[in-house]
């Protein structure tokens, strides 16, 4: 049970890069077991809040809800509970007012445009997920589910919880959330079902139904009836039945390896036009082999009747194991769309086993999509979402087979066919591993480190071996053919690469940066950067030797959920803000934030080819003039030269590596100097340029960069980072804004701020103390601070509530808290 709930120190979320929010229902909490929690929260948190200038956020919307509640007339309410609630709302408001004056609470966030506070929290969390780690105190299970899902989708730390009486934050497990979510759903659903449902019941049912479904999928949990049951996340039952036949019974999950395979003697092999006998699970008969469709390494494939084909093995591939496996598959009743499973054995005139009947596969070998030129030629309209669909189609089949205790064994692109409608067909069923019959073949690229060096035909593969192949296949599908362990500086020995477990694609995971410099050259790093973060994490964890899943690889079910979430993400315009993320082959890194400027490349015309980037410590985006490719060889990495610059670090000089001509004015703008200064510097370099609209060649730009680049940037940065002494914060009356920031606002046509910047969580910097405000805990000093409202409203306006405040101070929640 202890795992059902985790306790978190709220002070953690009062640190500068984090934000803590409180929802209305926390103030209205009737549960006496949690009484006093708010008080403890503020006692414990106040030092951190003031030190970090990071007040707890209670959005305007919440204040509004409390106000509405407090204005009700208790005398008119019959229920004692409601009377208490009205009082509570009033007390909370007084407390919040006071706390806000002490800089402990920020309540001016958001406006009235959002009809519901829940919605507001979700928007805030979506919008600022990439900026802050955030925690919302709320009792509402719906918002809790939503935010947990959001955290999962974005792979960010976004938490929700309630307060204990000690002021700790209680975070529920996925299991607990789903259980409570389902209970809430059932409550409202039964009201609706019984005809007693009001509008709220209906909207809860409409919202919770799909939400719970999403939640179950994303976290692989099902609601459990036993409240004391295990808290470990239960995996969803494989959904094989949705793709496969309901009749089939799984094979044994723990069969020991069968004795070595032996060849069977066959007198003759039937060919086109020969009569053969077939035997299915329940019937038998004869038919004439149709025309030869193709020859493979193990036999030939002929046309069968209807939607079937017939595989006739070559003589040396007719073995006891093959016969036994095909027979087992035939009688198993296993069948599913896209799986070319034997439906009948085929025998020659002498009655000897020679092959089997199976459903036809259609489409192209998966290798087609592993080669960008073929992919673009054969499927020119495909987007990344289509590749994700293929992963999903593949995974559904694999999940079904795994649920039947079948291990595919030789997963490789030759055994997958893909049709125009993105259906995946899996062929080569006679090589599958089942009932202790090993899969006798394999492909090094898809062979797990543990299996490398073993003989495929003489060892059973484990599920872990299988899941390595699954992961590799998925990686290659979304990465258009790249091998997960590809990196620079190898001698091409694939076996060695797999053994080493050096997954070179860069990632930031669980707060750690892995900036491997051996990422392969080319656009691969960009393609990687756009992959949905949870999927990326799962790949990294699976392939990197330090990954969490390196020895416990994700199951087909886990991958399936991850890829479904990827698919949903790509279709969600709000979360998937970068228009390039759905490209099959992105050509630049993913944009960091929704407001990152994205432009087409004016040189090559490629759409969305340029994304702005914000160098560390700066407040504005730099938008390169050209895309990575047009910026020259150093950006794409020449074949010969090994690029040493980590690609995550954007190029510093967008103008400096331009291949075309550059206007003096553009050069000047880039370095933050006037055109006249640029002309002077050019002439000092021995270059003659007449006016700002003159152009200089790339060599001159390079020389300019070499001579002045670093200095100019440093000077520009220094000025940009210098506080403008003429502008004072209306809150603390100190200089607060840099020249750079002022210029940026002016350039963007935005009003220049008048106070220190308060983040979305309401954090004023620690040194922005409202003048003459000295928050202390002693009552006498507090009473003297009421004259300063942190908001920039007129003094007159802020006077009125203060008077009321002073009058009611004795009864105030604040006094009650610290009195």
């Amino acid at each position: 049970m202890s795992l059902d709930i985790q306790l978190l120190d709220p002070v953690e979320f009062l640190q500068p890069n984090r934000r803590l929010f409180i929802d209305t229902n926390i103030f209205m909490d009737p549960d006496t077991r949690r009484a006093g929690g708010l008080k403890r929260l503020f006692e414990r948190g106040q030092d951190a809040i003031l030190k970090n200038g990071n007040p707890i956020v209670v959005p305007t919307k919440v204040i509004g809800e409390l106000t509405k509640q407090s204005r009700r007339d208790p005398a008119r309410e019959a229920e004692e509970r409601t009377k208490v609630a009205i009082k509570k709302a009033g007390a909370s408001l007084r407390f919040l007012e006071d706390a806000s004056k002490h800089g402990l609470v920020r309540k001016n966030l958001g406006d009235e445009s959002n009809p519901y506070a829940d919605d507001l929290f979700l928007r805030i969390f979506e919008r600022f997920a990439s900026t802050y780690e955030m925690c919302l105190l709320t009792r509402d299970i719906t918002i809790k589910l939503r935010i947990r899902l959001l955290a999962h989708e974005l792979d960010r730390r976004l938490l929700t919880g309630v307060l204990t009486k000690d002021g700790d934050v209680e975070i529920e497990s996925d299991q607990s959330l789903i259980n409570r979510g389902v209970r809430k759903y059932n409550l409202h659903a039964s009201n609706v079902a019984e005809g007693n449902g009001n509008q709220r019941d209906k909207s809860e049912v409409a919202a919770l139904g799909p939400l719970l479904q999403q939640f179950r999928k994303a976290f692989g949990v099902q609601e459990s009836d036993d409240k004391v049951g295990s808290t470990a996340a239960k995996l969803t039952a494989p959904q094989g039945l949705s793709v496969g036949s309901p009749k089939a019974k799984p094979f044994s999950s723990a069969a020991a390896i069968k004795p070595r395979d032996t060849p069977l003697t066959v007198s003759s092999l039937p060919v086109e036009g020969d009569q053969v006998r077939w035997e299915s699970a329940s019937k038998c008969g004869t038919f004439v082999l149709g025309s030869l469709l193709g020859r493979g390494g193990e036999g030939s494939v002929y046309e069968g009747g209807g939607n079937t084909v017939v595989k006739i093995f070559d003589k040396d591939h007719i073995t006891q194991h093959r016969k036994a496996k095909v027979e087992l598959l035939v009688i198993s009743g296993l069948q599913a769309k896209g799986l070319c499973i034997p439906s009948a054995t085929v025998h020659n005139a002498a009655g000897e086993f020679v092959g089997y009947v199976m459903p036809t596969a259609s489409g192209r070998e998966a290798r087609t999509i592993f080669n960008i030129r073929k992919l673009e030629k054969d499927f020119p309209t495909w987007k990344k979402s289509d590749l994700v669909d293929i992963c999903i189609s593949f995974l559904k089949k694999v999940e079904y087979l795994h649920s039947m205790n079948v291990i595919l064994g030789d997963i490789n692109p030759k055994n997958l066919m893909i049709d125009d409608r993105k259906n995946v067909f899996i062929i080569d069923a006679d090589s599958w591993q089942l009932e202790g019959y090993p899969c006798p073949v394999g492909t090094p690229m898809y062979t797990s480190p543990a299996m490398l060096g073993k003989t495929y035909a003489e060892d059973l593969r484990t599920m872990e071996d299988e899941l390595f192949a699954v992961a590799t296949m998925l990686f290659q599908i979304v990465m258009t053919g790249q091998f997960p362990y590809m990196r620079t500086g190898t001698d091409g020995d694939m076996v060695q690469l797999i053994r080493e477990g050096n997954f070179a694609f860069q990632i930031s995971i669980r707060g750690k940066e892995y900036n491997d410099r051996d990422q392969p050259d080319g656009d691969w790093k960009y393609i990687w950067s756009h992959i949905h973060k949870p999927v990326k994490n799962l790949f990294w964890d699976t392939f990197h030797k330090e990954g969490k899943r390196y020895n416990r690889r994700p199951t087909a079910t886990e991958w399936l959920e991850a890829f479904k979430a990827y698919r949903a993400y790509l279709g969600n315009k709000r979360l998937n803000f970068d228009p390039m993320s759905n490209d099959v082959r992105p050509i630049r890194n993913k944009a960091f934030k929704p407001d990152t400027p994205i432009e087409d490349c004016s040189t090559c015309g490629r759409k969305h080819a340029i994304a702005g980037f914000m160098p560390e410590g700066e407040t504005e985006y730099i938008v390169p003039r050209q895309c990575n490719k047009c910026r020259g060889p150093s950006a794409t990495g020449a074949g010969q030269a090994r690029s040493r610059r980590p690609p995550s670090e954007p190029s510093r000089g967008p103008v400096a590596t331009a291949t075309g001509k550059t206007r003096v004015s553009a050069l000047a703008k880039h370095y933050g100097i006037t055109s006249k200064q640029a002309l002077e510097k050019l002439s000092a370099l021995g270059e003659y340029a007449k006016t700002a609209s003159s152009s200089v060649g790339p060599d001159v730009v390079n020389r300019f960069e070499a001579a002045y680049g670093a200095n100019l940037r440093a000077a520009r940065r220094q000025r940009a980072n210098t506080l403008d002494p003429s502008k004072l914060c209306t809150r603390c009356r100190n200089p607060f804004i840099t020249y750079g920031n002022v210029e940026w606002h002016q350039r963007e046509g935005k009003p220049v701020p008048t106070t220190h910047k308060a983040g979305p969580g309401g954090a004023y910097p620690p040194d922005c103390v409202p003048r003459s405000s000295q928050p202390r805990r002693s009552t006498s000093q507090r009473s003297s601070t009421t004259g300063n409202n942190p908001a920039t409203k007129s003094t007159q306006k802020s006077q009125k509530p203060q008077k009321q405040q002073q009058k009611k101070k004795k009864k105030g929640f604040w006094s009650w808290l610290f009195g």
Partner: protein
Amino acid sequence: MATLNIGADDLVDNPTPRVPVSLCLDTSTSMAGSPIAELVRGVNLFYEAIDEDDDAHDSAEINIVEFNSSAGLVHDFASIERLPRISSLTADGLTAMAAGVNLALDTLEKRKATYSGSGVLYYQPWLVLMTDGAPTDNIEIAVKRVVDLVETKKLTVFPIGIGSRADMNTLARFSPNRPPLRLDGLKFKEFFEWLSKSVARVSRSTPGDTVKLDLEGLEGWAEL
């Protein structure tokens, strides 16, 4: 002797593992006449066949080293799309086979380094050595380099003798694993057809796989 500048994009954007094949060809005086003409025809046919094969097309990278009184690069490695068809080769001079082999090995090493530096998978390279005579330079070092590579599975060699005066003993020294083959008459066309099929076979495999060569297909062009 043109050296092609190979675009980096072409190299890195295609994730297909590469098969570098170096054709190390004897262009000494004795090759003059129909042998050299047939050889040129055979090489161009080889290119066509690679071009037409879906898999080899993306995998094969070919260069040509010729040797006569000295060794030279006819063209450097490139994918089939960028390869120029050769119009003619001039047969004139001695048979500096060692120089030819050494140059071919050097270019293969360089190409492998390029793959490695860019992060491109590759199969261990192939060296096709064709001569109608005996070396006129000292082959010891070249032999040792080739044998070392073959024994560590870092090179596959196809030594091919042309005509009755080809020194099969020398060719045998370059091939520790399998005997050299003598071309049946001037069946360059058949040989290169076989070679392109073999390249295609490899490119359909995965690096690290052991690929069985089509030994039966040898009958079409080799004197067995």
